[in-house]
Each structure stands twice: as C-alpha cells, then as structure tokens.
C-alpha cells in the first residue's frame, strides 16, 4: 500500500459529508469538493467523478456516476462486458467528451481538457505499441512529446541545438532507468513484433511509466495472456503500484484479478456503479444480488426464502436463524459455498442429495440437488480434512446435512437489493418456529 493513501482519507470523509447534504446540483457539489480539496494536500492526485453521464445517441451508457478515488489508491472497475466500465475509463482519459458531469483530478476540473493535458497514462488491452518503432523509441515518445516543442522535435534539431541534445540525453537516461526494473534493458532495440505477449505488456507499462503520470489507467491489460503469465504479471503490477504510489484505475471483467489486486472494487452494471468497497466487503456483504453473483470464483447459492414473523423457511423447511426485523414476504437468500457447513447432530438447516463431488487438491466441491428447498444446484466447498471426516461411513450419492454459518446468510428483496438485517439465532423464538412447522 502506498504512503499516499493515508492523506487521501481525510478529503474522502469531507467529500462524503458534502455529498450527504443531498439534493445539490453538480456545480454546487463540485465547488464544495473543490473547497474541501483546497484544505487538503497540494500534490493531491485524488479523483472525483461527479454526476458523470454519457449518452451515445439515445442509449445511455453511464448513468450519474459518482465516485471518489483516493490519492495512491488501486481501484478496480469490475463488471460484465457492456456495463460501461471501459467507457468510464475512456472518459477519464479524455478520449470522448462526457455528456454531463465533471471529473476532478486533484483540484483541477479535467473534463474540458484533451487527453495529453490530463497527466494520465494508460495501458491498453492490445498494448497499442507503435509497431514500427523499437522498444526504446516507444518509451521515448511520451517524454519527447512533453519536453520538446514541435520545432525541437523536428528531425535534425539535435544537430543544431545543444539544448535539444541535452534534453534528448536526459530522456535516454530516464528511459533506461525505467526499463531496468521492468527487465526491458536487453529488449530496448527490438521491435514490438519480436516480443512475446508478456514482454509487450511490460513495454506498455514502461511506456506509461516514463512520464510519471498522476493517474495510471489500465484497460484489461492481462486478458491477452495465458493463465500462468497473468498470475505473474498481476503480482508485478501490484508491486509497481506499491513502489510508485501512483493512483491506479484498473478495468477488468475477471473478478479474481479484481479481488487479488485492488484496494477497492467498484462493481458496475448497466452503466451504474452498484457498489464500491474493499474486496472483502464486496465478497461478504454485496449490496445487490447481481454483485453477489458476479463476485466469487464459485457461484453463490441462491434460494428463494419465505419470511413470516421473523422466521425463515425454504420451501416449507424452516431454518435455524430468525430475522426479527424483516417484513413478511418473499426474499432471495444467498450463501457463499464455503459458508455452508456439514452439520453434526441435530442442528442442520436442511439436508440435500449429493449429485457430484469434485476434489481439486486444496478443497472439495460438492454439488447438491436443491430441488427440495426450491432452488437450483447448491454448491458446498469444504477443506479436504473436513471432507474426510464427513466421508466416514458415508458415500457420495447419499444425503448431506447442511447448516448455514452464522452471519453468512445474505437476504435480498424482490428488486435484488440486500436487506440489511443481522441474522440472529435467539432461542426465545423457538415457539414461533414450532407453530409454523406444524
């Protein structure tokens, strides 16, 4: 984690306070945020996205996006394809104008600025290296563009002016100092076509790094690589972030990548940010059923549940837990596969027939037929040790008794929004349950 994150927290809280003030216009909010920022650190590179909208003809691609990104944070935009995450990144980079709203970097409104004036660097999905230039030239271009004037860039200028020669020398030295930690030194004179996928990716990162940008955008930079290389470069990118302390905004549709790398994840769906929180929070407490479905390597278990007077039943099977604060009605109950435990003794919530058992080394996946509780397949993940215990005297194909771990049940209402109740298991409601069971 970069040192910069620390002083980003204060403006965040301040910005929150102003946002809570509810119905203000974007302009008022913007000035409020600017006022708050003036108090904060001067070299602040935090980003505020305020009421950002994007429309292409009649289709609305982004709907009122509000997001605060702290200085030095690693934020991931996660979502299925077509959710608007790449569009948001393009608006941040300035490739397309936004329909309304504004983007602040530090205390500067960058929305009217062209890409080059925003002090942003980007790594593209296809790397977008200049095909006919060597690696060295590829990495030199951004510095040439920012340090030399148009006339100084003309061929032959270095022959005429000592100043241009000095700047060029400086640039060369800087390119080499960036290339070294990325392991690109030996490749500097090659053309992109002569590099492997991983090397091209590193060159793209190097080209983005040389300018020391305020913000670093990455658009699915690992999606063209094979699984092993992806893992390795994932670690390299996280290292890079820690070393440089630059604000990273990373776009991906791969939830594993997002979980593994980010400080915070903004989950997007249908042009909106559904939830923006730390990976752990997103995983354990998703605000929407769609978020719960999207995050997690193994699909979350969904069961239609009926709540009456605080007691929860799945297709007439009453559960141990009770939800006293919850209005009666139909809900979706979701539980992560690893939060379903095999039950010993009589404290099982339900028991289901086992359909398939998968052993993957560090864990065992069990797929049960959920028809009895009115849902589809129910997946359970166990540590191999507990599975061995379970198997004593039993076989796959038989029934398994399951219990939902404490605090693991997520309740979503009909619109897919999470209902925030803390499930408790008070004993005094036993009578109610007995009544219902009859």
């Amino acid at each position, binding site marked *: 984690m970069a040192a910069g994150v620390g002083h980003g927290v204060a403006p965040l809280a301040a910005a929150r306070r102003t946002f809570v003030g509810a119905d203000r216009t974007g302009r008022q909010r913007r000035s409020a945020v600017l006022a708050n920022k003036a108090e904060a650190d001067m070299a602040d590179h935090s980003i505020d996205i305020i009421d950002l909208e994007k429309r292409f003809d009649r289709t609305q691609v982004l709907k009122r996006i509000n997001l605060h990104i702290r200085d030095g944070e690693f934020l991931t935009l996660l979502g299925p394809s077509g959710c608007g995450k790449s569009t948001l990144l393009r608006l941040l980079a300035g490739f397309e104008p936004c329909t309304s709203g504004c983007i602040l970097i530090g205390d500067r409104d960058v929305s009217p600025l062209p*890409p*080059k004036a925003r002090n942003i660097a*980007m790594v593209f999905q*296809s790397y*977008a*290296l*200049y095909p006919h230039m060597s690696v060295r030239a590829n990495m030199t271009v*951004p510095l040439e563009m920012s340090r030399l004037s148009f006339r100084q860039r003309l061929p032959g200028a270095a022959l005429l002016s000592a100043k241009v020669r000095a700047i060029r020398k400086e640039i060369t030295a800087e390119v080499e100092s960036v290339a070294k930690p990325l392991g690109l030194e030996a490749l500097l004179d090659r053309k992109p076509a002569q590099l492997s996928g991983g090397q091209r990716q590193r060159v793209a990162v190097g080209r983005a790094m040389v300018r020391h940008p305020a913000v670093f955008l990455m658009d699915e930079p690992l999606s063209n690589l094979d699984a092993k290389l992806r893992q390795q470069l994932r670690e390299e990118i996280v290292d890079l972030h820690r070393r440089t302390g630059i604000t990273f905004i990373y776009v991906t549709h791969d939830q594993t990548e997002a979980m593994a790398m980010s400080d915070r994840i903004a989950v997007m769906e249908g042009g909106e940010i559904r939830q923006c929180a730390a990976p752990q929070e997103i995983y354990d407490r998703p605000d929407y059923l769609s978020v719960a479905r999207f995050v997690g390597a193994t699909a979350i278990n969904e069961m239609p549940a009926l709540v009456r007077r605080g007691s929860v039943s799945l297709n007439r099977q009453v559960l141990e837990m009770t939800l006293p604060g919850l209005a009666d009605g139909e809900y979706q109950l979701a539980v992560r596969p690893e939060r379903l435990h095999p039950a010993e003794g009589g404290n099982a919530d339900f028991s289901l027939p086992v359909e398939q058992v998968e052993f993957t080394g560090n864990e065992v996946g069990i797929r049960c037929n959920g028809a009895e509780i009115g849902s589809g397949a129910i997946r359970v993940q166990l540590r191999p040790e507990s599975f061995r215990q379970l198997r004593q005297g039993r076989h796959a194909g038989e029934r398994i008794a399951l219990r939902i771990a404490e605090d693991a049940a997520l309740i979503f209402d009909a619109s897919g929004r999470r209902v925030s109740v803390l499930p408790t298991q008070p004993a005094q409601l036993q009578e109610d349950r007995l009544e219902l069971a009859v």
Partner: protein
Amino acid sequence: MARFSLRPIVAHAVLLSGAFLMIYPFFWMWRASTQAPGEIFGTLQDAPPMLASIADNYARALFDSPLPNFMLNGVIMTGGILLSQILTTVTCAYALAKFDFRGRRLIFAIVLVSLSVPAQATALPIFIVLAKFGMLDTYTGVMVPYLTSGFAIFLFHQFIRSFPDEILLAARLDGMSEVEIVIRIILPAMMPAIAAFSIFSITFHWNDLYWPMIVIRSIDLAPPTLGLLFFRGQEGGDSFGPLMACATLVTAPLILLFLAAQRRFVQGVTMTGVK
C-alpha cells in the same frame, strides 16, 4: 522419378505464349535500337558491328535530341504529381477512415463515384479553366488535374481503417497532434500501400500521352512520351535506330523501378483487407 503430366506443360505453353505477346514489342524495340538504320528493314551486306550501332544510336538519342530534357520534364511532373497525391490522399483517407463527422459517407461516396469518371470527360472543362488562368503550356497545367486521386483515397482508406484505434488513442494520450499521428504513426506503417500506389501513379503519369498532348505545346516542356512524338515528327522515317534507343531509355526507368519494388508492390496490393 517424376510422373509425366500434361497439365503443367499446357499451362506453361499458354503462359509462355502470353508472355511472348507482351514482351515481343519490347524486344523488337531493343533490337531495333542496336541496329544501323538500313539494317532494321532488311539485311545489310556490310552491317556495322552491333556495338558500333548501339554507340551511334544511343549517342544520337542522348546528345543530338532533347531526350535528357524530356526525361527531366517527366521526372518533375511525375514526381510532383506523386508527392502531392500522397500528401492529399493520406490525410484525406485518415480523416475518412478514423473520424466520424457529418457528411463523411457522402464524401466517401463522391470519392468512389469519381473513380468511374473517365479523364476524357473532364478534359474540356479543365482545359478551359487552365486557359482562363493562363496555365496552359506549364508544368502546373499538366499536374493540376492529378493533384489528388480517388483511387489512392480508396486504397489508403481501406488500409487505415484496419489500423488499430488503440494505437491512435495512445498517440493522442502521449500528446501527438493529428498531423503528427499521420506523419509518425500512420505513414511508416503504410509504406507498402504507398509503394504499391506509387508504382501505379508513376507508371500512369510517366506513360501518359493524352493530357500532356492537350496542355503542352512547346517542346521544352514536353515529357518523354510527347517528346518522342515530336522527335519522330522532326526526324522523319529513316532514323528508327535512334528513335528506338530513345524509347528504350524512356521505358527503362519504369522496368527498373518495378523490378526493384516488385516485392513491396505485390505486398501492397494483396495486403489491403488482410490486416
């Protein structure tokens, strides 16, 4: 042992006869340029040695006729046309391929339609305009109708359209202006396409007789093709040797150019559409 087969033999026979039809006039031209005046139409009893005839014919072509001047005119006109064509069409094709603006489709349609208008149809109006501006019998007059080319716009448009957008975005992010993007990113990448088009353009304008014949009147400004025509008219019918030597010298640059650029040329023509 290779199996005897009729198909390749027939195929080669057909191809060879086609090649013969194409090459024979050139061969005849070259042979005539190596013979003494009387020798071309019948065998001379005391024909001078071939080297002497060559020396004589080519010396007369180079030093007694204004051929070097014709060649220089040809180079200026062809080069000027090519340069301005590349400048105008690459930028135009870039705009048509990568920007979305009002009227883009209409403009592109006009470009395509212009491909099907024969040069003869527009000759008279252009001639009148040139006459009004007093540009007849000048280099500019020859070059003006060809300063841009619908064919080149179309060819380059197809090429640039397949050029990855992300590279252009990266260039803009790096701070390049659109002109610099064209010069530093697009142009180097499309060298094969430009080479292919250059051969088309150079061949056409070097060999063009029609338009110079309309515009040029003074022999000083004549390009090689028109020059040969003047030359023949002046010399009468008996000096075929020097005339053919001129013709050989006029044709040679094109053949050499094609041989040198052959690979790129084929690359450029086949590349459009692949990627």
